[in-house]
């Protein structure tokens, strides 16, 4: 077991950081805000953490924390600016924000290391640390998914006018989703960077947006659990299908397309369906037994 662990520790850690990144995109979508600023936050958090370590000589966790705080603030400020936008217009504006972050990094001179990026920022992070941080993040998200809070957020997403009329401050909820997405994205960026020891502008790109989006849609967009399933699938899929060798990417594309067609609510939806069906069958069986007895 521990042999397996040491062989796959990178994949395990990558799964966790990918989950954080996916969550930073999923949170605003659950609030009805089509924002990809989480990927920009990933860049800000990563760069901030690397700069704090390389230039300021900070230790691991203060660097990560600084990254999370700064990206939280920046993305919140972005939220104030773009909150009026809807739908894909919001999507475009936040993608523009993300790409601008990348250009800033290219032109950041000594501070950001220019096109070559920053290297040598190797933090002291192990799987336990990431799990602990993730536990806190997930706990917060579970709270936003359950009972009253969950229903209020669903209303904000599905029917903002209704939400306003029943006294839910839609604007406040949406801004909160920006801040939350910024902090989570910043954490993802900081941890990923200090695990790898490097960050370059080329990483903070449209491709990362696609990775995160694909993970949550295929996994399930409405719950953190869906994002988790998506992260597991997309991090482990390449190793699972590496036997097809050079056609790996073809198989990958095929699997993504098939998932989009046949899994309307993602893998999580299928699992929930199966559980539901199983329960109803049990229920029916129980009723049948009762009726026979009666």
């Amino acid at each position, binding site marked *: 077991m521990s042999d397996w662990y040491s062989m796959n520790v990178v994949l395990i850690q990558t799964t966790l950081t990918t989950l954080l990144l996916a969550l930073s995109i999923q949170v605003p979508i659950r609030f009805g805000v*089509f924002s990809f600023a989480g990927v920009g936050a990933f860049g800000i958090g990563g760069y901030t953490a690397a700069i704090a370590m390389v230039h300021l000589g900070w230790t691991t966790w203060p660097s990560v924390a600084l990254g999370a705080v700064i990206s939280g603030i920046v993305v919140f400020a972005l939220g104030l*600016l*773009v909150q*009026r*936008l*809807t*739908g*894909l*217009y919001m*999507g*475009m*504006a936040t*993608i*523009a*924000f993300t*790409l*601008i972050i*990348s*250009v*800033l990094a*290219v*032109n950041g001179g000594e501070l950001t290391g220019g096109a070559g990026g920053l290297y040598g920022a190797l933090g002291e992070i192990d799987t336990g640390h990431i799990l602990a941080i993730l536990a806190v993040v997930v706990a917060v998200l579970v709270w936003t998914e359950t009972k009253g809070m969950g229903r209020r957020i669903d209303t904000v997403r599905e029917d903002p006018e209704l939400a306003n009329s029943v006294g839910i401050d839609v604007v406040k909820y949406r801004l909160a989703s920006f801040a939350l997405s910024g902090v989570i994205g910043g954490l993802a960026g900081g941890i990923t960077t200090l695990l790898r020891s490097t960050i370059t502008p080329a990483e903070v790109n*449209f491709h990362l947006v*696609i990775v995160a*989006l*694909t993970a949550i*849609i*295929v996994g399930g*967009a409405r719950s953190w659990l869906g994002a988790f399933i998506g992260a597991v699938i997309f991090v482990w899929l390449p190793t699972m299908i590496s036997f097809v060798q*050079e*056609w*790996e*990417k*073809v198989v*990958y*594309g*095929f*699997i*993504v*397309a*098939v*998932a*989009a*067609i*046949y899994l*309307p609510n993602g893998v999580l939806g299928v699992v929930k369906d199966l559980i539901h069906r199983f329960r109803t069958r049990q229920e029916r069986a129980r009723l049948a037994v009762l009726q026979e007895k009666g």
Partner: protein
Amino acid sequence: MQDLLNVASLGSIYLLFALGMALVWGTIGILNFAHGATFMFSAFVGHLVTSETELPFLAVVLVAVLVGAAIAALTQLLAFQPILKRSKNQHAAEMRILIGGIGVAAIPLAIAQHQTRSSPFGFRSSYEAEVLEIFGLRLSTTSAVVIVAGLAIGIGLTVWVRRSRRGLALRAIGVDAETAAGMGVNRTLLAFGTMATAGALAGLAGALLTFQLGAIAPETGDQLLIKAFAIIVLGGLGSMAGTVIGAYVLAGAETLVLNLNYGTWVDAVSFGLIFLILLARPQGLLGRKEVRRT
């Protein structure tokens, strides 16, 4: 003056690529992420064919147009149509269409990368670009063709969508697909035709741009995709005229930045511009006010 000509040339490149994407997205509401791959693969097949036998200009274009139409038609038939059929409404389908497109796009990309080892490819054609010199301005014949084709098709499509019976039906589908069906519009067939047309446009763009640039790489399509996305949002979704204007505005902004010799800031400036325009006019330059929620 020469700069204006360059803007016209670059803008027409963007426009040719963006038109097909704008047509399907703005009317039948399909944001096709496989458009870049369709574009690239049409040119790639052109490359394969011309490496067997040398072909004249028009023949290469024809091959690419047919391949583009075929890929898009297949995408619609095998991916998007099943998704639409399995979705309760357009809103639920949108995300899945996006992801489905991403999956589909991975397949031709992987094939082309594998075949070319990602080196750039061009055409072997009897056509040789010549440079025209008029009043001291230099313009290659290919650029001239690209400018004329871009403008002609852009204006043609604008007029067609605005004036023709099918164009009207397409716009009606864009507003409310079900009610349009109630008026006798065969949505499936029209969507299929529109996708094939958009694919043909992608193929045309693929052939013309490969002639214009000399060669493209398998990844070129992805880079254009994000620009096209920006152009359509900039111009206003659903407005073909907006797309035409958006393409030249983006090209103008980029050329301006390049001429001031801030080459590394090009993306920041063009996306910053889009950001600002969205803030000032959330529906894009010529977009309609009500934008469907996504």
